[in-house]
């Protein structure tokens, strides 16, 4: 087995080949590339820096990742600005109507703008925490704009990657995830580019899963 691995040239030293491979061996990055070369390039750098942080901590790498992430974060907000506190007249009507279904004071406790906005945030956050969105084009609950971001054969690698994260990796992943999810307070869309802020995370975890299996 070791000889086989050596023949293929995939050793621990060549993990960068693995991350580049998984960053490019998916339809997602190419869909983004067709729309914006700049955005694709920034996401690619994000992926490499996130992956390298998971391998070894380095202040400069962290700075580079933070900068690239901030750029994509601001691009997302600029393109799809839709904050959760801005409710449409239909939303207000719904709140007022549902309030009448509760007894007396309870209506204003359970149905108000704050609760409605929080539910909106929940909807946005959980819409991207969906394995099928990334690996099966949201099938069997497709929307019109969904497309298969990664081939489904990579799903086991992704799951393996998630469950073999060490404590240190978990901290990095959780921080990235929380910052990425916070964007949905300010913006949201089911765009044809998908939730591209999560591209570095999914690619890095899939690559990590592959490497963990390979080196066992």
């Amino acid at each position, binding site marked *: 087995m070791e000889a086989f691995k050596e023949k293929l040239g995939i050793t621990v030293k060549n993990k960068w080949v693995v991350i580049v491979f998984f960053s490019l061996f998916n339809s997602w990055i190419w869909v983004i590339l067709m729309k914006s070369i700049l955005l694709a390039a920034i996401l690619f750098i994000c992926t490499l820096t996130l992956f390298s942080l998971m391998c070894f901590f380095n202040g400069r790498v962290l700075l580079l990742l933070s900068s690239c992430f901030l750029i994509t974060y601001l691009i997302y907000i600029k393109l799809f600005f839709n904050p959760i506190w801005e409710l449409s007249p239909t939303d207000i009507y719904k709140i007022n109507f*549902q309030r009448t*279904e*509760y007894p007396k004071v309870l209506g204003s406790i*359970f149905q108000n703008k704050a609760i409605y906005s929080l*539910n909106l945030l*929940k*909807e946005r956050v*959980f*819409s991207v*925490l*969906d*394995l*099928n*969105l990334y*690996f*099966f084009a949201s*099938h*069997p*609950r497709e929307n019109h704009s969904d497309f298969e971001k990664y081939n*489904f054969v990579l*799903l086991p690698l992704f799951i393996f990657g998630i*469950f073999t994260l060490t404590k240190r990796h978990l901290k990095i992943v959780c921080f990235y995830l929380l910052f990425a999810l916070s964007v949905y307070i300010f913006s949201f869309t089911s765009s044809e580019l998908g939730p591209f802020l999560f591209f570095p995370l999914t690619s890095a975890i899939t690559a990590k899963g592959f490497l963990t299996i390979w080196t066992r």
Partner: protein
Amino acid sequence: MKIYKFVFPAVIFLAAFLRVYQLDKIPAGIYVDEASQGFNAYSLLLTSKDEYGKSFPIFFRSLGNYQAPLYTYISTIPIHLLGLNIFSLRILSALGGILMVCLSFFLLKKEYKIMDKKMLYPMLLLAIVPWSILFSRGAFEANLALTLVVAGSYFLVTSLEKPLMLILASGILALSSYAYPSERVFAPLLLMSFIFIYRRIFLKNTRYIFFSLALFIFILLPQLFLLTSSGANARIDNLNFFGEIMKGHYSHNGLINSMEKLYFLVREFFSQYSAYFSPKNLFFASDPDPLRSIPHLSVFYWWMIIPLFLGFKDVINKKKTPLISVLFLTIFLSPIAAGITKDPFSTLRTLPLFWALTILAGIGLNDLLALVKKTSARATLLLGLVIISLGSLYSSYFVLLRNEQADTWGYGYKEIASFAFTSDKAVLVDDPRWPSYILFAFYGKVNPLILQKQYNSVFLSDYYNQTKYSPTPRIENIVIRPIYWREDECIDQYIVGRVLSVSQKQAREHKLTEVKTIKSLDGEDIFKIYKTNPNVGCKPAPI
């Protein structure tokens, strides 16, 4: 600690209260499948036959879907004691939900030995979790199947100390396949996998394996004899995606070779399978079928994603105990049956999965709370999570589901039935949406002989192949069909329809008199009842 001797009964009481409180009023109305269960149980009590006249069927033809029989048979007990009503119909499911929580207590005690918070948290979550409340408060046979699966799991774990219990576990798991179709796939897989994992223990006493498998097959014999009938396979034939893929519906041009078929089959199965593990479906979006979902609430409360993840990480790194083995087997085997159907995220088919995930979330909740050092802060956090959860449950289930989904749950038919059965005239009901005759039969406590006489011995001799279904068109003075204006306006009768069935213009044109409007609980009109005026409205047919 002594306090747990009071806390655990309190949790059971909470579970019971949430499942039994206003059981006959929330959900408002009953669904056709529930009515069919209840009426068939009622028919068995009075005539020893189902609504079609079949004596003690192995599957109930019901509404053409050949329901699993166990829920209907056991329902005869509460219906005999309490009469045919919504409460007696649903109490079996509610008791099943409460028993599931109690059985989980015994299962957890086998693992943890001492009654403490490691046992408390999974039980607390099982008591209040949305999926269990929803399915315990309707006549869902899958909930009864889950109770049997949990009981079977308990005896499986016990059998490692007392091998004789393997026979009992096998019998109970076999029985679960009579409660819900998914268990026909899951129960044997669970039994075989558990025996295989612990084969070193079981092979010391091979006779127990032999007797347990023999009992399993013996109990399944009636189903095995009917394996080739259309009725036994009605559900799987209608619900699976194999046919569509083999016909090439998944390719762009309809042409598909065998490699592509294999690719699409594998892809389709894994997309359906993985949907049952998607955080979006488990914590937010829930079941697309409104009868199997709660407004603004999913299978689990949204905050449970964190303890569930922690629970997974906890047990993956630990030595595999019998409880962990049962949980993991349940988690990975339960969605297989649902994974071969084309319905997206059908929660009813994977209740054992949610049970196992809830216990894992309880284990993770213990790990989460352990991060908080101060006992008072830990207690406050736990109390806060419980209050938020119960608040969400109250809002979504006891208010919004009751009011906004009353129509979905068949609200209004009771009012039509009570109007129609006290009327001296015929009542024409235009209701293409459902086989509503069964609802009228249920509410009217109609004599089952009236329905049974419509089916002759030829029909009954081939009972299990009668998959071509059309609803009964008449129950006493209620006729269920579309309105034929030319004839119906000339008959002295009442006409009942949904708001869209008879417009105001039609009512004026055909000289109908509005007698009654039945409103939903949110104030929307659902049904209108009109009286015809043949003397005025009847137009003679052209010569």
